[in-house]
């Protein structure tokens, strides 16, 4: 199981270390699940992903192919509800993929 999360655009682009970029303090961002929205804003392609912190909190994040994780939300605190400790997560959008795609490790 991954203890850190980094997002890799499939074409040339920076490797984005989400933990370092966002300064997560709740522990490792593990079990990442990349949804890959791939919506171009004219300068970069964006991807969404969700993951869990070491204490089982669910977060989502948005990253761009030009570098940087732009958003990090505690999903439970943002209105979904307080479920408890999550151990696995999956995420997806219904947008068709586009280049560049992303992978996450």
């Amino acid at each position, binding site marked *: 199981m991954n203890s850190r999360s980094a997002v890799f655009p499939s074409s040339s682009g920076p490797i984005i270390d989400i933990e370092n970029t966002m300064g997560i303090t709740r522990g490792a961002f593990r079990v990442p699940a990349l*949804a890959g929205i791939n919506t171009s804003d004219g300068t970069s392609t964006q991807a969404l992903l969700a993951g869990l912190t070491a204490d089982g909190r669910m977060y989502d994040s948005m990253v761009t192919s030009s570098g940087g994780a732009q958003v990090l939300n505690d999903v439970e605190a943002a209105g979904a509800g307080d479920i408890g400790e999550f151990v696995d997560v*999956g*995420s*997806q959008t219904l947008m068709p*993929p586009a280049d560049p795609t992303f992978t996450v490790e």
Partner: protein
Amino acid sequence: MPENPAALHVVGVTGSGRLFHTMRTPTAWTPFVDVLGPGAANQPQLQGSVTEVAAARAINVLGTASPSGMFSEALVIVVLAMTQPLPLFFYRYADTGQWLSMGTGTASTGPVASLPLALICSHLQSETRASNPQRICISPGPEGVSYS
């Protein structure tokens, strides 16, 4: 009403083996829905036994919930449960939020693999099996969906 295709769907498994879904709207996250509860898939026999989940976008899904019997795209999840020998597939009907069973799958043949699905979920294939050998992935194939 068609939902925003850019909405991020997230499904999570809890330490107690339950499965929940939420979706990010422009203003907030929707409340968690118990996927296996009576308001969704209504699969009480699976409650408390779920161990893993993966999600994918599926296109041209044949389903019973849609009046047309076909979804141009739908959220599909594959679930591992301690009480089930094979992965279980579910899809979500966006108009009602209902979850419907697609049955079980075998690795590359069998009932799920024979469904006329074209799954686009290459993003899910990044987990390395060496570091996490039980991680499930679902991927497209010429004959339909498969998992590994």
